[in-house]
C-alpha cells in the first residue's frame, strides 16, 4: 500500500475550457442575429442609409453583444469559484468530492458502490490537455434518471479538468480491489454459516451433506479425550448442538472458521480432526 489517502484539486485550465465552450455557444446566437439585422437593413431600404446602419449596430450591441459579454464575465467568475471550491480526496473507504458554487455539495462514494470509471477526453479537453473522470455507481439516482430519458445527467462522481487521470484511476482501482472484494451482505449470507438463522442453517447443512460425505472425522474421539460433552463443545464453539451431531456423523462439511474453532476447543490441529477421504 503506497499511501493511505490521496487528495487533489482540478486544473486552472478548466476555466479557459469552459469559457471557450460558452463562447462557441454564443456564436450560434450571434450569427443568426447578425444576419437578421443585415437583412432588415437592406430589405427596408431606408432613405438615410447611414442612420439606419448606426441604428442596426446599436441594436446589435445592446441585444446581442452586451448580453454575451455579461454571460462571459459571469461564466469567468463562476468557473473561478467552481475551481476554488472543487476538491476530492480518497479516504480508506470512500471517495469524497466537494463541489458547488452556490449550493455546496459534499458527495461521499463508498468504493464498494463503484460500478465503473470512465475517463473522458473531449474536443475542448484536448485543446487544454485535460481529462474528466466519471465514477459511476450502482443504482445511483443519476443512472435511474438517465434510464427514464432524463437527458444529460452528471454521474455522482464527476471530477473534471484533470491533468493526469491515470493516477486517479489507478488509485480507485487499488482501493476498490482492496476494500470491496466481496459485496457486502452477500458475504454474510454465504460465507458465515455459523451466523445464519437456524432454519437457514438446516438448509445449509442439507446442501452441504453431499460434499460432507468425503470428510472423515475424529471429532468424537477427540471430544471424549478432552472430556467434553456434545452440549459443552457446542457451547464453547458457539453453534447449535445439531451442528456437532452432524459433524460427528461426518455428514456436515464445516466452514474453515468453524473447523479452526473446534480445533481450538479440543486443543488439537485441524488435520488431526478432519481428513479428506
Amino acid at each position, binding site marked *: 500500500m503506497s499511501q493511505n489517502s490521496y487528495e487533489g484539486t482540478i486544473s486552472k485550465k478548466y476555466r479557459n475550457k469552459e469559457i471557450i465552450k460558452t463562447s462557441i455557444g454564443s456564436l450560434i446566437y450571434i450569427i443568426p442575429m447578425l444576419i437578421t439585422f443585415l437583412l432588415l437593413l437592406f430589405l427596408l431600404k431606408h432613405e438615410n442609409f447611414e442612420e439606419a446602419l448606426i441604428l442596426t449596430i446599436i441594436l446589435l450591441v445592446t441585444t446581442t453583444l452586451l448580453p454575451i459579454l455579461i454571460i462571459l464575465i459571469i461564466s469567468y467568475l463562476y468557473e473561478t469559484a467552481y475551481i476554488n471550491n472543487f476538491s476530492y480526496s480518497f479516504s480508506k473507504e470512500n471517495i469524497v468530492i466537494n463541489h458547488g458554487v452556490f449550493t455546496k455539495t459534499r458527495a461521499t462514494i463508498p468504493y464498494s458502490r463503484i460500478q465503473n470509471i470512465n475517463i473522458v477526453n473531449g474536443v475542448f479537453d484536448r485543446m487544454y490537455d485535460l481529462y474528466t473522470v466519471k465514477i459511476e455507481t450502482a443504482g445511483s439516482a443519476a443512472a435511474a434518471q438517465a434510464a427514464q430519458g432524463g437527458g444529460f445527467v452528471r454521474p455522482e462522481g464527476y471530477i473534471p479538468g484533470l491533468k493526469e487521470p491515470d493516477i486517479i484511476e489507478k488509485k480507485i482501482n487499488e482501493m476498490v480491489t482492496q476494500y470491496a472484494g466481496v459485496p457486502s451482505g452477500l458475504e454474510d449470507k454465504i460465507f*458465515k454459516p455459523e451466523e445464519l438463522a437456524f432454519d437457514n442453517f438446516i438448509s445449509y447443512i442439507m446442501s452441504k451433506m453431499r460434499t460432507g460425505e468425503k470428510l472423515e472425522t475424529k471429532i468424537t474421539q477427540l471430544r471424549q479425550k478432552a472430556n467434553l460433552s456434545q452440549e459443552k463443545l457446542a457451547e464453547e464453539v458457539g453453534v447449535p448442538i445439531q451442528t456437532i451431531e452432524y459433524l460427528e456423523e461426518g455428514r456436515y462439511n464445516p466452514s474453515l472458521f468453524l*473447523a479452526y474453532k473446534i480445533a481450538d476447543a479440543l486443543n488439537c490441529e485441524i488435520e488431526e480432526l478432519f481428513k479428506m477421504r
Partner: protein
Amino acid sequence: MKFKKKIKSRVKEFREELGLTQQELANRVGVSRQTIYYLEKGNYNPSLTLSFKIAEILNKPLIETFYRVPIIKDKIESLSFKKLKEISKKVGISYNKLGSITEMNEKELSEAFDEEILRKIANLLELDFNELFIN
C-alpha cells in the same frame, strides 16, 4: 482474555510459486475463478473440504495455506508508518514496541501488553473492544 482472530490465506503466494493462474487453480479445484479471487482476498470463509482440496493441490499443509492471525495484529500491520507513530504517541508506548506486535504470537502478545493498553489501542483504531477480544 482471548484474541479474536481472522483467517488469512497464502493461496496467492503458493499459487504463484507453482506458476498457476487463478483460472487454472479454479479448474483443478472445481470451483469458479471468483471463489479463488475471494479466497486470495482473505475475506471468504471457505468450507473445510474446499480448503483441504486447495491445500492439497498447492501441496502445502492446510494450516499454512489458511492461517489465523489476531485481528489486532492484522490491523496494526495494515497501518501506515505515520498512523503507527501517532497511535504509539497517544498510548504512551514506544513506536518499536507497538510495531513489534506484528512479530508476536498470541501468547507473547498477551504477556507484553496489559488489557488497558490493548483497550486504548483498540479505541484509537476505532474498533470495539469486543471486535478484537473474547472476554
